């Protein structure tokens, strides 16, 4: 049985007046790439934020490497987060810093590396995402796709063991989306990074997933390999993956 890296056990979360998560049970094996699909507003990003401790469950437990994230104090949480990388939907690059400063920030904060060494690592990570030469630029002068790639370089700079991707291809053109998908897959294959990606881009999901989970009505409605999901007869899953407005999922 493969070792579990991330586990959700009966996770409930209420936001405003709605229960967004209603008893999510899900586990991700070490080195596995799990994609969570589901309609907008179903709590996919909320799920990710529980892994890094940005949100705490109202009920249930989220474990990372066997440790209950909610039980960690501020300092332990910060040190757990050093092992994780997260790509945010809009990139979340720091506006007041250059791209090199964005990518190198975690190295400056958490390692004793000298500035010259950090510069080399930053250059390597930017080259990995195809952004050589953007070191001195500000996030505001990059396109959406470049911002996402720069954010990916930043998320990877500490060589995380766990990567979380929040809508990695949303808002990108199909070619840039493919670049990001290939990059995510390559990282997973080469470095055996455990990852969770949330998306409603099925092309992306099929490309990067070892397993796909569908979040619907606050629970994991379906779980399987990309082939199993593609071949499912479940009407809600079929409607979602085919992008049809007719079926059990009502337009919001």
């Amino acid at each position: 049985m493969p070792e579990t890296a991330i586990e959700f056990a009966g996770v409930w979360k209420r936001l405003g007046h709605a229960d967004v998560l209603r008893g999510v049970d899900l586990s991700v094996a070490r080195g596995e790439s799990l994609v969570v699909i589901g309609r907008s507003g179903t709590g996919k990003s909320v799920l990710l934020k529980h892994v890094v401790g940005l949100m705490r469950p109202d009920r249930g437990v989220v474990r990372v490497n066997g440790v209950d994230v909610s039980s960690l104090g501020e300092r332990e949480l910060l040190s757990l987060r050093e092992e994780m990388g997260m790509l945010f939907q809009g990139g979340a690059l720091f506006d007041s810093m250059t791209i090199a400063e964005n990518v190198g920030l975690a190295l400056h904060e958490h390692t004793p590396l000298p500035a010259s060494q950090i510069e080399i690592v930053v250059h390597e990570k930017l080259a990995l995402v195809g952004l050589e030469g953007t070191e001195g630029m500000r996030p505001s002068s990059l396109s959406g796709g470049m911002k996402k790639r720069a954010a990916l370089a930043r998320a990877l700079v500490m060589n995380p063991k766990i990567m979380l991707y929040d809508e990695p291809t949303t808002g990108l053109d199909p070619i840039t989306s493919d670049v990001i998908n290939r990059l995510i897959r390559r990282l997973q294959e080469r470095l055996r990074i455990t990852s969770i990606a949330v998306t409603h881009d099925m092309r992306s999901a099929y490309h990067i997933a070892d397993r796909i989970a569908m979040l619907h009505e606050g629970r994991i409605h379906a779980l399987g390999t990309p082939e199993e999901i593609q071949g499912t007869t479940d009407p809600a899953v079929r409607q979602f993956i085919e992008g049809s407005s007719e079926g059990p999922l009502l337009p919001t």
Partner: protein
Amino acid sequence: MSETPAETGVATWPQRTILGIFQDAGEVFILLGSVLREIPAGSRKIGLLIQQMAHIGVGSMPLTVIVALFTGAVAAVQASYQFRDYVPMIYLGTVIGKSVVIELGPVLTALVVGGRVGASIAAELGTMRVTEQVDAMETMGISPVRFLVVPRFLAAILMLPALTVFADVVAILGGYLVSTLTLDVTSHTFISGLKLYFKTQDVFSGLIKAFFFGGIIATMGCHYGLRSEGGAEGVGLATTRAVVASCLLILIVDYLLASFLFRVLFA
């Protein structure tokens, strides 16, 4: 963000308001506690500290100078009107000097800087919050309190007293210029009055106030900025709240400090 007791809708409007005030106060004290814990580590970020000192201190200089100059000028005109026929004009310099260093210098500087800097801190951190930059920072294992709040807090408590010294000098200069140029008060009379009853503790009391006002401005800006939600509207609301709360607290704390300083410490 989980639902707060003040937002559940079960409580009535006055209950919600009171709960909201207590909740806000609690959150501010928690933030202050975190700031005090993180000061040893955060103060090593000299680059960030200097950047904030330049923004809060140097950036506020022109506004402070203009406000102080006219405050001194108005104080001279109004005091001379009150003194006419009753009080010798030698006391004009005394009154202007005392009122400026004890009250007008620190309070007006804090209110002006509170508007400018409090709004800018709340807007900047608020935008960082709603665009997930603060979440990104936390995810990278970097404490937003250490990285964002501590440099602003230290810069504000250091620069407010410095700005106040400047404001005191400029306001007295404003009073001097108006008195000597338009009110038939000689330079000798004004300066003699200024020296009369001058106490160093008056200047210190103003600087102590400025130190606390700096802390209030940075804390309110950071508190409301970091808890912004809901996009541009949320950032706007946070900015307004930061400025209103700063101004109210400056006046309330001014009274409390004045009571302590002049009834207890310097009594």
